[in-house]
């Protein structure tokens, strides 16, 4: 990974490591610290499965019995785990129709070096690979049948999910879970090399059903780390890499909103478009709640986009119109795109045009870029958004239907710097990703030329939340904000900023 900001720090890898998959890891104290990811169903009743991770420790005595990764089975007991057996071996549990324990041969792991572990169940054998070598010693009894993971599991990184708990002491990195048996060549790919770094699990085919990079992308919310599973799920069930793993959570009753100032390049346009990912909460109160974008200088010189009911979007201009949409429900993400071509309006929900014929409107008002706000109506202290918002973008053109489909990207926000209409992108706020908190949230406008960074009002650091398309995201427990370490397999001396925010990156450098 190259230099990037994730609340609260810039992560600036040693230049020789900038192209490596992982440069940061997480440090666990062996006492209370662990990461829990809920609502994982990727291994439920699969006939085979695997996981891959890296760990590093010098503690071979008190780490005995301590768990690195645990996925419980439906009865709540140990389902598919790896833990420290003793000072010279590891052990794995597997629950199928039987309960199998597999122990490694004698290995050396407490040497302060990073070691890779892959545990593989192929339907009849349960093996442990240590630094790509099959070190399986005993596997008793021989397993068979499907993995007895429940349909909704809690993954625990750094301790057992059962009452044993037994927290691990050391560093963990790159936890990936697969719903098939990894081949030896795939394990070699994951092992990587000192010159290229560890392998990227998302490059394998099939992709993992969960991938926690650990360290590189974790955001601190003031109390805990959000540990994203970047194996996001598209609407057709395929797995894709989540470009923007975070969102911001707006509380209407606390008057939360983002002020983006005056976006002068949005004024005096003949056509323009907006895209926003919305996830609403609360009761929609027609005209008086749930506005997510607005801008203007007066009630006759403005625009706004508002959730008017669970199946209606209201679009304000010099007047307003209501477009009936497919039904939306609380707690789900939707991509809303408005396309205003100067004389008519189209509204898209998840890439699908909702109006059967163009909605007649007048030309965009001249000052719609003034007082641009996310989560509130610009002219009043009212009509706040309640729920989550992510990846709001505005465009100085009427996007085509194929460009809207590209924005939807099968339900996973993408890097708009690569969008086919990028030259028409006026501003883009990821909201959560590339955002920093210091009294208020500063939300980076990704389009440098306009630079209309947003500033929150009345929001708190814990308003950063998991983003669109992601599931089974992790949340740390017992960590204080200094557990991300600039050390990963094949990658050392990577730096972390102190007391810097997302705006501290500048383009003015020595020539």
């Amino acid at each position, binding site marked *: 990974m190259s230099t990037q900001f994730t609340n609260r720090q810039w992560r600036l890898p040693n230049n020789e490591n900038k192209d490596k998959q992982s440069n940061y890891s997480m440090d666990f104290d062996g006492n209370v610290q662990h990461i829990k990811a809920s609502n994982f169903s990727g291994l439920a009743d699969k006939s085979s499965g695997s996981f891959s991770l890296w760990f590093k420790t010098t503690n071979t005595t008190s780490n005995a019995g301590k768990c690195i990764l645990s996925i419980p089975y439906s009865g709540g007991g140990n389902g598919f785990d790896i833990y420290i057996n003793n000072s010279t071996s590891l052990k794995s549990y597997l629950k199928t129709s039987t309960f199998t324990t597999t122990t490694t041969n004698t290995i050396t792991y407490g040497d302060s070096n990073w070691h890779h572990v892959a545990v593989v169940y192929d339907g009849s054998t349960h093996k442990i690979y240590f630094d790509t070598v099959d070190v399986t010693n005993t596997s008793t009894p021989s397993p068979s049948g499907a993995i007895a993971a429940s349909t909704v599991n809690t993954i625990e990184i750094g301790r057992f999910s059962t009452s044993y708990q037994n927290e691990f002491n050391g560093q963990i990195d790159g936890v990936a879970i697969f719903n098939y048996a990894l081949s030896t060549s795939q394990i070699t790919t994951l092992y990587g090399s000192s010159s290229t770094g560890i392998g990227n699990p998302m490059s394998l085919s099939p992709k993992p059903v969960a991938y926690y990079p650990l360290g590189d992308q974790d955001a601190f919310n003031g109390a805990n780390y959000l540990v994203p599973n970047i194996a996001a799920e598209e609407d057709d069930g395929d797995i894709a890499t989540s470009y923007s793993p975070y969102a911001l959570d707006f509380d209407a009753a606390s008057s939360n909103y983002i002020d983006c100032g005056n976006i002068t390049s949005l004024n005096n346009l003949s056509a323009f478009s907006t895209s926003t990912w919305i996830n609403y909460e609360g009761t929609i109160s027609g005209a008086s709640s749930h506005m997510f974008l607005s801008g203007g200088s007066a009630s006759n010189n403005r625009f706004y986009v508002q959730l008017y009911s669970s199946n209606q979007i209201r679009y304000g201009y010099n007047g307003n119109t209501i477009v009936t949409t497919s039904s939306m429900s609380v707690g789900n993400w939707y991509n809303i795109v408005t396309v205003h071509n100067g004389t008519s309006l189209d509204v898209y929900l998840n890439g699908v045009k909702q109006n059967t014929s163009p909605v007649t409107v007048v030309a965009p008002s001249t000052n719609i870029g003034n007082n641009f706000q996310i989560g509130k109506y610009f002219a009043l202290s*009212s009509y706040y958004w309640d729920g989550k918002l992510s990846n709001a973008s505005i465009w100085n053109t009427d996007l085509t239907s194929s460009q809207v489909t590209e924005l939807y990207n099968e339900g996973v926000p993408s890097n708009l710097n690569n969008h086919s209409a990028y030259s028409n992108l006026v501003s883009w706020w990821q909201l959560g990703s590339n955002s920093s908190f210091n009294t208020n949230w500063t939300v980076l406008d990704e389009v440098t030329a306009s630079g209309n960074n947003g500033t929150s009002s009345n929001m708190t650091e814990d308003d950063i939340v998991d983003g669109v398309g992601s599931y089974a995201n992790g949340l740390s427990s017992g960590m204080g904000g200094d557990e991300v370490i600039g050390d990963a397999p094949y990658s050392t001396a990577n730096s972390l900023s102190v007391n810097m925010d997302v705006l501290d990156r500048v383009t003015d450098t020595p020539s």
Partner: protein
Amino acid sequence: MNNRSYIVISLSSTDSVLWSQVSQSSAQSRGRNLANTQGLLSYSVTPSFISDGSVVPVGDIMNQTEALELLQTSAWSEPMPEE
């Protein structure tokens, strides 16, 4: 619904509010009623200025749903002008 608590205070109590202990950023940005006599605050941990009685809430402590209902009333929300 979140787990925050919501209170209405008189604007005359504003000087006693410690903004680091509430969700709102400042007196200027918090919600206030149309008569400009009361403001709405929210918090996760009871602020010291409430515990020690420096600020006495107007009415009961509310949850998020109750606060949203209050904001929908005519005393707190004015209709959007339509052209």
